């Protein structure tokens, strides 16, 4: 778990919270907040540390744009293949996040400290 660091934990937490929030009725503010947090954090936080940038500030900055980009590209792929549904897109995004987290656990450790 040490290899996952805060980004991994944030990704797992945001994914779990969103899945749990789906039980809430449409129109719930908590569910909307969980979706926004997931879209802003989960895909990026799962994958960005794989870049091995060794710069926490830059990793932090990349989380949101990478998350947005992946949400858009997955939606595009599903729409143009006429397979889109909200649940399917969630499943694909969760799979990507899980894959990213698994890759971080498997691959050799790289330090992400800011060099002095």
């Amino acid at each position: 778990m040490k290899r996952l660091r805060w980004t991994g934990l944030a990704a797992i937490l945001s994914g779990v919270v969103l899945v749990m929030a789906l039980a809430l009725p449409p129109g719930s503010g908590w569910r909307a907040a969980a979706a926004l947090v997931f879209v802003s954090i989960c895909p990026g936080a799962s994958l960005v540390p794989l870049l091995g940038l060794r710069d926490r500030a830059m990793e932090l900055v990349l989380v949101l744009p990478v998350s947005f980009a992946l949400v858009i590209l997955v939606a595009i792929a599903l729409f143009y293949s006429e397979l889109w549904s909200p649940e399917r897109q969630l499943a694909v995004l969760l799979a990507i996040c899980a894959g990213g987290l698994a890759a971080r656990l498997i691959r050799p450790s790289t330090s992400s400290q800011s060099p002095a």
Partner: protein
Amino acid sequence: MGRDEALGSTVLTDSEQVSQATTQVVDPRRSGKAVTAWLPFVLLPTSLILWLSSVGSIDMAAMNDYGLVSVLPARIWAALILLILSFAVCWRRFNPAGALLALHIVLFIVMFYGIPAVAGDSPRGPIVYRHAGITEYLTRIGIVDTKQDAYLNWPGLFMGLGWTVKIGGMPSALALGKWATVAVNLMYLPPLLMLLRALTRNSRLIWAAALLFFVLNWVNQDYLAPQSITYVFYLTILTLVLTYLRPLGVVDSAQPRGRLGAPVKGSVGASQDERLASRWSRWLPTFRPGPLPHDVPETAVGGTTGVLVAITVIVLFGAAVTSHQLTPYAVFSAVTLLVLTGHCRVRGLPVLMAVILVTWTIFVAGGYIDGHLSKIATSTGLKTSAASNVTGRLTGSNQHQLVVWERVVFTATAWMLALAGAFYRFRSRHRDYAAALLAVAPMPLFLLPYGGEVLMRIYFFMLPFVAFFAATLFVPDATDAPTTESSVAGALRRTRDVILFGGIASILMMGSFVARYGNERMDYFTPHETAAVKELYQLAPRGSWLLAEVGYLPWRYQDYEWSRTDPSLAGHRYLSLAQEWDLDPTRSARDMAVWTAETLRGNATAGRPPGFLILSRSQRAHEEILGGLSQTAMDDYERILVRSGKFQLVYANEDAKIYARVQESKR
């Protein structure tokens, strides 16, 4: 040299370690710096209290054609100026605290961009509602019909947004519209700081440029729209390229450099992946590596990390290509220029970007391009762009014309400040070549067929670098010298800098405010107007034709699609009287009333429901401000319609009326 010191965190450069050592010797209380230490803790809360106590009392309905400035309480001005002064005090401290400066900018974003969200009742401007309608349509249908609308040739953001809305159980994307401007500006801040950090490591310069970016951003391209989110990608791509994809091993221009993949002394070595990439791009020309700014450490990475960064750039670019027509061209132009001048070593990047752009344009947006080829051809070129972006905008009511001229002067001032800053920097032998190149990189967009907004978009793409060069005027190199900080002369100089930067930034903020909120009278929608549109959707069965004087009202957020032949795709047909009038400006009010009655009757007799006409305050404001239909012509038009007996008033409130076309019996 460390990486994070530029943003005020704890990792220090060699020179700053010396500087900090000096500050540790000098007691801040004795040197008089205690005042600057506690002053922000007085100014900041005062500013916040002033803003909170007055923002709710803004009477949006009382605005004139000068826009929001005409009803802005003095306390809001005072709050914003105090905030900027507080920032200037923190910024000019010997060792500025990054967190405190960031807090100032975050508060500035909320207090400057959040005024309409707090004072208004609903998202501003009709485009947000239209975007919500496209999002709703896409997620309801689940497929893309590019014939519906040009927007659907670049649907990426709408699809991503639609999924977020669906999975979050939100009623509509409009739920995000009201605070979107504040949210996207907050999103700009982190990549902007990183981008500036790739241009200089002078923390004072970085923070001054960051504040100026938000002060100078008057162009209103930051609402719930594809261009606002793709701008985050734009900033991030340039940050990645300038931080990690510079030529490997470039520390000084005198040093020898290697090509992509060549292991260069002092850099992270190239991996098998990168050598492979190098072989693939061997046929591409090699460019002499561009020099780094003197205070920026080498951060370029090779190996697997370099390849992964390049892939990340492509992923972000791909998302931008699918979401917006213009932003990918701005990215492409900037990256190409950086490669050609040796500031980016990945020579294949522009080639790959061009392939993605062309592929999308041919295979996805091809239908739109084919269908609008003649329009595109006639709206391309310098003369056409100049006419639609400059001369075409200098019209409208007297008050509005003053606002338009103020925008022109404000934009020119920003550019002149940047030019003066660039002149100073190059005279003082700084090597800000990358910043200068990126400042001019968006210029070719002026030739694209993008209508009357392309100049504003260019300004927006140039803004980080315009802000950077403008900020250099306030951060001469001498301000970094630690030796005189404790002297009286040093204290006086700090005070002068605070007044100069705070004063000029405040004046720019006021100019930016007038420019940004100059159309607010028509961009603002009252609760009565949104209620009337809601009622319109209740009254009008799907398939109805809906007519407005001008399409400047909060509609189209549902039933977006339209098909003449397929009833399942018949949401509503949205029409605008002003558009018809533009086609033949010589028509009288009577002619237009006849046209309205006939158009809506034609639809009714074609087996569809009759049409509806909606008239509202914002439409009148739009025509009065921009100088379209005259007040008397609109009044005459409405009077003739009512007298004709062919229209029946079915809904009215203070700010809107809805007329239904009476179904005529078949003879």
